[in-house]
């Protein structure tokens, strides 16, 4: 799993470097500082990052042997993750229908949707893993003594998705929103 994450990191670094390379190089169409709003994104980010903590609580509960608490924390994590996805979807809806920014509009749109989209895709994969574990635990297939290590490893992926988001957020919503004049 550590190596899978290493590999994924490289995959994202490809997109991140590309994004950095293209910051401020999008001559026409909607610009990041005009269309990206921080408010909803911060709510999403808080949800996603706190979900990293709730999943830790879940693993700890499992390690203690209390499957009930494990299920509750895991469910909270899943809900927070779903909030993030829904939030991103709403943001995109606004961008596409109100600001007219799509992947073909300009180079900013190309980079924005690819990077954020790939991240959202990974969040979905993480959610599927967590939901799978949740369903298994509902049917009583998660034995604390036997499985806490396995569940722990599975949650690494979730932490990874979170960490990537911190980078993506910094890049897209903070560095990327600095007006072009300041960059050049």
């Amino acid at each position, binding site marked *: 799993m550590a*190596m*899978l994450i*290493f*590999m*994924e990191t*490289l*995959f*994202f*670094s*490809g*997109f991140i470097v*590309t994004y950095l*390379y*293209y910051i401020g*190089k*999008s*001559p*026409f169409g909607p610009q990041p500082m005009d269309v990206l709003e921080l408010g909803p994104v911060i709510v999403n980010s808080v949800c996603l990052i706190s979900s990293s903590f709730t999943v830790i609580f879940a693993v700890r509960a499992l390690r203690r042997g209390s499957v009930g608490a494990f299920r509750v924390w895991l469910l909270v994590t899943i809900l927070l993750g779903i909030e993030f996805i829904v939030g991103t979807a709403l943001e995109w809806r606004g961008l596409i229908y109100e600001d007219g920014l799509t*992947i*073909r509009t*300009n*180079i900013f*749109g*190309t*980079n924005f*949707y*690819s990077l954020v989209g*790939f991240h959202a895709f990974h969040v979905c994969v993480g959610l599927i893993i967590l939901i799978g574990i949740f369903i298994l635990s509902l049917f009583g297939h998660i034995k604390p003594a036997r499985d806490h290590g396995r569940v722990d490893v599975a949650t690494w992926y979730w932490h990874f998705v979170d960490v990537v988001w911190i980078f993506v957020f910094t890049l897209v919503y903070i560095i990327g929103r600095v007006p072009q004049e300041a960059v050049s």
Partner: protein
Amino acid sequence: MTTVPSHPPALAGRRDGAGFWERVMAWTCSVDHKKLGLMYIGCGLVFFLVGGLEASVMRLQLARANSDLISPETYNQLFTMHGTTMVFLVGMPVLLGFGNYLVPLMIGARDMAFPRLNAFGFWLFIFGGLLLYFSYLGADGLYGAGVAPDVGWFAYAPLTSRTFSRGNPTDYWILGIMVSGFGSMTTAINFMATIICMRCPGMKLMRMPLLVWMMLVVAFLVLVAIPILTAAQAMLLFDRQLGAHFFNPEVMGSALLWQHLFWFFGHPEVYILILPAFGFVSEIMPVFSRKVIFGYPLMIAATVGIGIISLGVWAHHMFAVGLGPVLDSFFTASTFLISVPTGIKIFNWLGTMWGGKLEFTTPMLFVTGFVAMFLIGGLTGIMLATVPFDWQLSDSYFVVGHFHYVLFGGTIFGIFGAIFYWFPKATGRMLSDRMGKITFWLMFIGFTLTFMPMHISGVLGMPRRIYTYELDRGLEIWNFISSIGVPVQAAGILLLIWNIFRSLRKGRIAGPDPWNAWTLEWATSSPPPEWNFDRIPTVTSARPLWDAKNPENPDAHYV
């Protein structure tokens, strides 16, 4: 899987009494690292024949000036498919296949760490390859008939944009390589986990066979390089299918970015292709010199050094782009630097042979040929790393000559040596040494005939990737000699195939240790049982079988 009886030979396909479908199932459903390894090698060799056929047609076209045997479009498709096939569908799978077969045996393990993931990786590779070749049938797009990708194996933007690459052959190229790339990545994860976690008692890192060390570094490089390629290909796919603008200069996208991303993958990739061959040489050469490998720790250091430096040399493929003096000098320097550990290896191999009791069996001939050919390829590599020289000869036939010396004279000779060396282990029978030697000399002479003149035609100004050339430029004779070499090599390869099929039935029975070798794979029967070792061995030195054969003078005294 369940149909496998309790004591089968590794080649279950040749078991008596099993029905046809039972045999097919025993292979296709197998998660045994040995069967998967053999399937990797087998499929890789089939693709090798296909790629070789494509090369032969190109050489036939170039045999004389102003030839119109095939159209320019066909020629473009041929060199694209040849390059892509040889790199992604021959080099990678055959080397990963050898790694798959040998790594668990060499470290005294029963299987890879994740056998099912292993099978998954293999099937991804094979279907990725078939997807690429399906473009001949299915990539109709606007042409109305199947066409292969024609953008070159490194698929430079903006040739790959929808404007210049109509229809969807390039999309087949992207997807086929992406799928087989996922296979390589899973296999690399598997190698790392296996080598780190599954070594037998006593097999410290500094007692591992060098091939295992090389595979460890290769796995690391695969993990670093392939995701970047996947990311770049994903961007390209977005460009082509969704109308994104990553590589579209019209709206400030950058064609240069593709080159950076591609070569950041591409240069580690050539080390992915050569390091396992270094491993073959490092295993085969000591056995037939009857000496320990010279400078074992230095070999490991050099391997790791190559692995790290290879991540910082990619832009030497891009000097002609005009990166500016600072970047040019940096990448020249790093490229010179990487030749140091490579040179260390060459001296260590020579040091291994020096004063040894040399036995020139077929595998030894191939690895000796490897050292010589690879040295030439390495030297022309240093020439090309010099910026002014590169500006003069970039994208000429000199470059074609250079990388064929490295990848054909290097990797393929290493692979052929490995086939002759480990064939007895995998099948229980020896390949004919007499035919093997003829194969070697045919290959060696044919290879030199084909690729040595390419240096000259390159210096004379022949660019690569043109489908024909004009008379009276002094190019005819060199191209003609290059083409003459092809049938000689083809004869060698056909002889090898005949040798394999004949020896499978009539070859001399090998016994567990035909070469009197020292590493653990020779400690078990040939072919090894499904579980590899009856008892997991315990080792006390880098040459466990030497210790077993010479209990009065074990290696363990010296390390």
